């Protein structure tokens, strides 16, 4: 019996695009895999895009700039926009009802605002953990 030749089509992985810019490097081509985080970790914030809530937060904390929030960016998880919460060590997905702008700088500011609200919430997962495990 002659075996039927089947053509195996390998779909080429699409390029990772962050902030509208292709990031595929020669190294990525060689290993056939995207390397890096789910956003450009080195993207510096555009302070012109700061939101009123973030201004209020920075002022309340007595800082001169976004401080730790400079490292917060909008990424994705489970095929949806998400922001990484380092305290809960997980991605917090953005609800569909929130409309996101089409550029990374604006999205990052929204991610920062949402993350602050999430972390300061009495419903944050660490609040329960603290109640259960706080020793001193």
């Amino acid at each position, binding site marked *: 019996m002659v075996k039927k030749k089947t053509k195996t089509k390998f*779909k080429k*992985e*699409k390029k*990772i*695009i*962050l902030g*509208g810019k292709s990031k595929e*490097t020669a*190294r990525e081509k060689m*290993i056939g*895999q995207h*390397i*890096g*985080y*789910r*956003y450009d*970790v*080195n993207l*510096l914030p555009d*302070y012109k895009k700061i939101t009123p*809530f973030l201004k*209020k937060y920075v002022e*309340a904390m*007595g*800082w*001169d*700039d976004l*401080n*730790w*929030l400079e*490292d917060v960016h*909008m*990424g*994705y*998880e*489970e*095929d*949806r*926009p998400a922001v990484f919460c*380092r305290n*809960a060590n*997980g*991605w*917090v*997905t953005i*609800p569909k*009802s929130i409309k*996101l702008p*089409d550029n990374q700088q604006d*999205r990052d500011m929204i991610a920062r605002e949402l993350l602050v*609200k*999430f*972390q*300061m*919430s*009495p*419903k*944050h*997962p660490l609040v329960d953990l*603290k109640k259960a495990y706080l020793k001193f």
Partner: protein
Amino acid sequence: MANLKATEKKTKSQSMGMHSEVLTGRTQQKFFNPDEGENLYYFGTYDVDFNKRTELDVKEMTAPEANKEIDNLMSQGFGTIVIKNPQGKHSLGVGILNKLNLIFEGSLGYFGMGSCDGPTVRINGRVGWSCAENLMAGKVVIEKNAGSCFGAAIRGGDLICKGSVGARTGIDMKGGTIIVGGDAGAFTGFMMQRGRIIILGDVGINLGDSMYDGTIFIGGKIGSFGSDAVPSDLTDSDQDWLKRKLKVAEIGEKFDVSKMTKIVAGKKLWNYDNLEPHEKKGAI
């Protein structure tokens, strides 16, 4: 590595050009609630007032006693605390998860200001090893020199040393900014994963050794580059950011940032596990 698979479906994040792949198996299924209140501080932390000031002499106290007293003062609403006679004690001011204006009149020993999240700290002296280790957020300013492992594993915030620092500055850092007004020792930015380091003076050998990501800016001479640390172009955005950050740090405001050297990761150490069979094949 996370599982990569191609997808035909164009979802919200894809249509915005954020990615073109699906990463599965990592989610914790946490969803942001759009009706969340506008709280500015962690739940259960103290409501302190920066204008309410007090002094604390820790000469006769042990480090745990001093740290408990700082906590006690915060619970009374003091937002500015001046610590007298720290006398190089180790582990002072650790684990503060509150907004606070903390001033040390003297020098600290090892692991000062470790694991803090939020306070603004000024140390009018020197610090020992691993100052502000695991800093999450806030601003720590050291007026004189710092020891080795300055800002080890920090994840956020600004850590500023107006003098010089020892070896392994920013080792394993995962975010935040370290700014040094003077020189830095060997292995600066060793195994850094993200964040930024600014050194206005010279650095020792093996700069950025085994760095995975992040950026290092050097104003002076570089002893030697470490494994996978490569020079990169300084952009206008970098220069604007450097000028702003140095102003915040109160050092080098007149420093010519355009002459700084930018160092990034060559990213040849990434995906070691995936690459290994490929390289093994080549070797055989």
